[in-house]
């Protein structure tokens, strides 16, 4: 219970304060888009991916949320950039199997690791990822 919570690692705060590809305007229709919402706090993010030649050529997100939600979604869009759909699926699988300590996250998601010890923040962290899961399911 140290006041310097491991949750708020520098990397996470950096993503929160400078979210990557966070945009105000709606995604154009060429993007694959899905939304994640958390009823407990009203958080609401939308993830958009532009796929060209089987790869993510642009990724971004919109919406509002707590630092964990924003940072996690920002990391998502950063990590997704350039991935193939298969890579995305694998990445999603890793993050989704959250509880199992064994899954190793890529470096760019390392800061998320801290959230694992806080089950009640899992929903916050997963909001954008759930949207990604939906995109993958429906594509």
């Amino acid at each position, binding site marked *: 219970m140290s*006041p310097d919570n491991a949750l708020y690692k520098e990397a996470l705060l950096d993503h929160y304060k400078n979210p990557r590809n966070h945009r105000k305007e709606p995604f154009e229709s060429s993007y694959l888009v899905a939304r994640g919402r958390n009823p407990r706090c009203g*958080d609401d993010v939308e993830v958009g991916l532009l796929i060209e030649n089987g790869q993510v050529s642009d990724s971004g997100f919109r919406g509002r949320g707590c630092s964990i939600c924003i940072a996690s979604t920002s990391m998502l869009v950063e990590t997704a950039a350039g991935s193939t759909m298969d890579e995305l699926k694998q990445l999603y699988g890793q993050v989704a199997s959250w509880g199992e300590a064994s899954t190793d996250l890529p470096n760019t998601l390392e800061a998320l690791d801290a959230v694992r010890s806080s089950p009640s923040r899992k929903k916050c962290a997963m909001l954008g990822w759930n949207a990604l899961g939906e995109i993958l399911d429906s594509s």
Partner: protein
Amino acid sequence: MTSLSGAQANLRNLFPRIRASETAYLDSAATTHKPESVITAMQRAAVEGYAPVHRGLYAEAESASSAYEAVREQCGNLLRFKPQEIVFTRSATESINAVAQSFLTPQLNPGDWVWVSELEHHANYLPWQRACQASGAELRVLKINYETGAASAEQIEELADSRTRMLAITGQSNVVGVMPQLEPLIQVAHAVGAAVLVDAAQCLTHQASELARLDADFIVFSGHKVFGPTGIGVLAARYHHLEQMEPWLVGGGMVDWVGEGAAKSEWSDIPARFEAGSPNYIGVIGLGAALDFVQKLPEREVAEHLLRIGSYAHHTLSQLPNIRMLTPASAAATGVISFIHERIHPHDLGQVCADHAVAVRAGHHCAQPLMASLDIPACLRASCSIYTSRADINRLMQALEHAERLFL
């Protein structure tokens, strides 16, 4: 840093967990800690006094039954209902659902009106919404003035419409602390033959005598919010209403004659018919001890303490530059202080508080309709009880300052 009066320090000492814990517990609107006397009563009920209720001839069973019934009487006395008008349930939530299902729904017709206030907890909103959806009635929402607790003259006029069947309203908001002025609303509702349920989950501790003075048809509350056990609740209901109601659970202890085949069964007397299954003996005895505790509290001192601590919290928080208070100053004496930070998300604030061992609540507090009317998705709530100290509030301030350093 602490500045408890002698009496308050004593009250604090009655709570073993509060006494021992490092945490600044500011989540009493969610659930309260238990005084020694309740812990002891539960333990005694589970050991020396343990026996089945209402079902045995032997000494322990008779004592258990008498003790159980004595709590019913105690609840009745507290709220000025007859003992037979007290039904033990698992929670305020079950109590409200029971009234919505067994009392209201069967008499509701398309076009009827059911009123709630915009302050309601989901427990006092969803059951009525469901009753309306099942019957084609309309759920209408009373706005309550935060400063005065009054409804508007226009809405009171609407409430007085002959279509009104029911008013279900909280005695105190679990988010903004506001206490609606119940008496005029009850009079208006009764004048058009509507019944009134008062959700006393938040206000029983400090408003029992006011509640007793009301002419409410139904009063509900939960043990765990009045220093008692979890898993036990109360439904106080006027006898003639209970006579109209079908049992919502059927089983042992509530039937006189089981009908054969298609024959209807004959239910037992009121209130037994509404308490199907083995009674929650430990819960009821713990509740009795909790109500004992509440009834023996020095009323004026408690009110003064809540006023002092609530105002202190309200005042101190109001000083912070980025804070928007949701609880009006006039409701600070309830000790339920909600607010938002203009630039930091409630979840983040709540988390930083947690990291400082300050237990506050972030979220919609099971009051989405209220959040919608405030046009916010969520907020932070610090809620005080008789054991809350200024030191707890000071810890909260430190945590909030830390959050500002972290996030801004």
